[in-house]
C-alpha cells in the first residue's frame, strides 16, 4: 500500500510538472496546446534513446529531453503564432498524433508499438525497489519545486507581464513595442521544455515507454489538472495535478466496487469519468480552485 501511494505521488509530481509547462504556454501566453503529450513524448523518447543506446549520463539525457521538446515547441510557435485559438487547437492536437504515429512506425528508432524497455533509472538495481521509488519521489518533487519557483518568478518578471499582455490583447502589446512573435516563441519553448523534462523523468521512472502512453487522454488529464487548479496561477497547476491523481485513483476504487463489470468496462468507466469531470468543471468552475489574481482584476475592470 505504501509503495502504491509513493508511486501515485510520483505520477502526481510528473503531472504537476506537465501542468506547470502547459501553464506557461496556455496560462501565461494564452496559446492553447492540446498536443502537450507530444512534447512530453519527445522528451521521454529523447532521453530513453540517448541513455540506453548511447549510454549518456541520465542528467544529460533529461537536459536533452527538455532541449528537444523546447526546440519543437519553438518551431511550433513560429508556425502557429499568428493563428487563432481554434486553429491552434487543431494543429497542436495533430502534432501530438504525428509524434505518436512516428513513434509507432519508425521501428528502427523507437521499436514501434512494442516500446522501449530497460531504460535506466537513478540507482535502480543498487537499491531496493521501495528505496528507488522514494528516491524518485524526492527527485520528482524537487524538480516540481524548482520549476515552480523559477516559473513563478518568471511569471511575475517583466517577461511574464508581457506574456500576460500578449494573452489579453496581442495588438496592444505590439503597439507598446513588444516583439509579440519572439515572446510567444520563447514562452512556447519554455513550456515545452518543462513538458519534455517531465517526459524524461517519466521514462526513467517507468523504465518502459510505448506510443500508447502518449495518447490524447493524457492531454485531457493535464488540461483537467490545470483547469481544476486555475489557469494562469502556478500554484493551481500543482494543486490540480494532485486532484487529478486523486480522482484517477478514486475512480479505480469506484470501478472495483461495482460488481459485474469487465476490466475493459472498468477502464472505459474511469476514462469516461475523467472526461465528464472536465466538462463539468468547465461549466461550473471554469476559473479553477485558485483563480489567477491578475486575471480576475483585469476581468472586473473591463
Amino acid at each position, binding site marked *: 500500500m505504501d509503495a502504491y501511494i509513493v508511486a501515485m505521488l510520483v505520477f502526481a509530481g510528473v503531472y504537476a510538472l506537465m501542468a506547470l509547462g502547459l501553464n506557461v504556454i496556455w496560462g501565461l501566453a494564452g496559446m*492553447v496546446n*492540446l498536443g502537450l503529450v507530444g512534447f512530453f513524448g519527445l522528451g521521454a523518447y529523447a532521453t530513453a534513446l540517448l541513455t540506453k543506446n548511447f549510454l549518456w549520463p541520465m542528467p544529460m539525457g533529461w537536459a536533452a529531453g527538455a532541449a528537444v521538446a523546447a526546440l519543437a515547441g519553438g518551431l511550433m510557435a513560429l*508556425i*502557429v503564432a499568428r*493563428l487563432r*485559438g*481554434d*486553429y491552434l*487547437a*487543431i*494543429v497542436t*492536437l*495533430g*502534432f501530438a*498524433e*504525428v509524434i505518436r*504515429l*512516428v513513434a*509507432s*512506425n519508425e521501428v528502427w528508432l523507437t521499436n514501434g508499438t512494442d516500446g522501449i524497455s530497460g531504460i535506466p533509472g537513478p540507482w535502480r538495481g543498487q537499491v531496493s525497489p521501495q528505496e528507488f521509488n522514494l528516491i524518485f519521489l524526492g527527485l520528482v518533487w524537487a524538480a516540481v519545486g524548482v520549476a515552480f519557483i523559477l516559473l513563478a518568478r518568471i511569471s511575475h518578471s517583466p517577461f511574464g507581464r508581457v506574456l500576460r499582455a500578449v494573452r489579453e490583447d496581442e495588438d496592444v502589446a505590439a503597439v507598446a513595442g513588444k516583439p509579440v512573435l519572439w515572446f510567444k516563441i520563447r514562452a512556447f519553448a519554455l513550456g515545452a521544455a518543462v513538458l519534455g523534462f517531465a517526459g524524461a523523468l517519466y521514462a526513467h521512472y517507468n523504465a518502459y515507454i510505448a506510443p500508447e502512453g502518449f495518447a*490524447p*487522454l493524457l*492531454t*485531457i488529464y493535464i*488540461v483537467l489538472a490545470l483547469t481544476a487548479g486555475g489557469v494562469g496561477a502556478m500554484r493551481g497547476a500543482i494543486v490540480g495535478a494532485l486532484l487529478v491523481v486523486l480522482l484517477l485513483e478514486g475512480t479505480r476504487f469506484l470501478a472495483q466496487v461495482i460488481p459485474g463489470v*469487465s476490466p*475493459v*468496462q472498468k*477502464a*472505459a*468507466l474511469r*476514462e*469516461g469519468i*475523467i*472526461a*465528464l469531470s*472536465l*466538462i463539468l468543471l*468547465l*461549466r461550473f468552475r*471554469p476559473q479553477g480552485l485558485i483563480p489567477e489574481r491578475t486575471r480576475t482584476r483585469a476581468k472586473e475592470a473591463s
Partner: protein
Amino acid sequence: MIQDWRDLAQVLLNGVMAGSVLMLPAIGFNCIFAVLRYPNFAVAGYATVGGFAGWIANTQWGWPAGLALLAAFAVAGLTGLLAEETALKPLRPSGALTVAIASVALTLLLENAVRFAFGNDLRGYDLPVFRDWRFDGIRINPQQWYNTLYAAAAVAALFALLAFTRLGRAMRAVADNPQLADIKGVDPDRIACVAVLIGAGLAGIGGMLIGLDTSIDPLTGFRVVLSVFAAAVVGGLGSIPGAALGAMVVGIGEEMAGLLLEPAYRTVTAFLAILLVLSIRPEGLLGRRG
C-alpha cells in the same frame, strides 16, 4: 510508382473514394463551425456512435446497408443534439476555445460509452462479398464504390436542403451573418440545433462508411480525425462546399503520398496539409474568413 496513365487514374480513383468517406464528417464539422463558430472535435465521437448504430441495425436487425446508414444518421444526429444541448451549449458564453476543449472531452466520453457497451473488439458488417471490378487494368473495390455513391447521395441531399428550402436559406443566413439573421426573425438557437443534428448525423454516416469499408471499434472516429480536420481546413473552416473539395484534395493527397511514404503515414500527410494551408492561405480554398 506511376508508370502510365492507368496508375495515375488508379491513384486518383482511390483518392476520390477515400476522400468521399472523409467528406461527410468534414462537412459535418464545417456545418457546425459555420453556425456556432467553434471547432467541434466531437465529430470523431459522433462518427464512432454512427458506426455502431449502423452496425446494430445491419447485423442485429438485418437491415441492408442503405437503410442502416439512415439509422447511423439518426442516432449520431440525436446524440450530437443531446450532447450539444446538455454539455456544450452552456459553455458557449466562455468562448469558442472552452467549447472546443470540452468537445475533446466529449469525444472521449462517447468513445468510452461505446467501449463500455461493446468492448474493444473490431466488428464488421454483414455484407455481400464482391470481387474487385477491373476495367482495362484499373481495379475498383465495389464496396468502396458504393460508399462513394452513398456519400454523394448524402451530400446531394444536404445541398438540396441548403439551396431549395426555407430552413436551408435560414442556415445559410445565420452562417453568413448571425446578427442580421436574428433581426430578420431567424431563431439562431433553432438553426444551431439543426446544424448540430445534421453535422453530427453526417459524421455518423461517415463513421458507418468507414465501417463498411473496413471495420469499427471505439477508436474508429478518432483515427480519421486528423484527415477530417485537414479536409475542413484545406477547404476553408465553415465552408460546406469547401469541406467537400478539401476532402477530395486530402483523399487524393494521402493516396499520392502513400506511393512515397508508408501507408501508416497518411495522417501525417493530412497534418502537413493543414500546416501548409494555414501558412499560405489560412482561409482555405473556399473559405472567406482568415
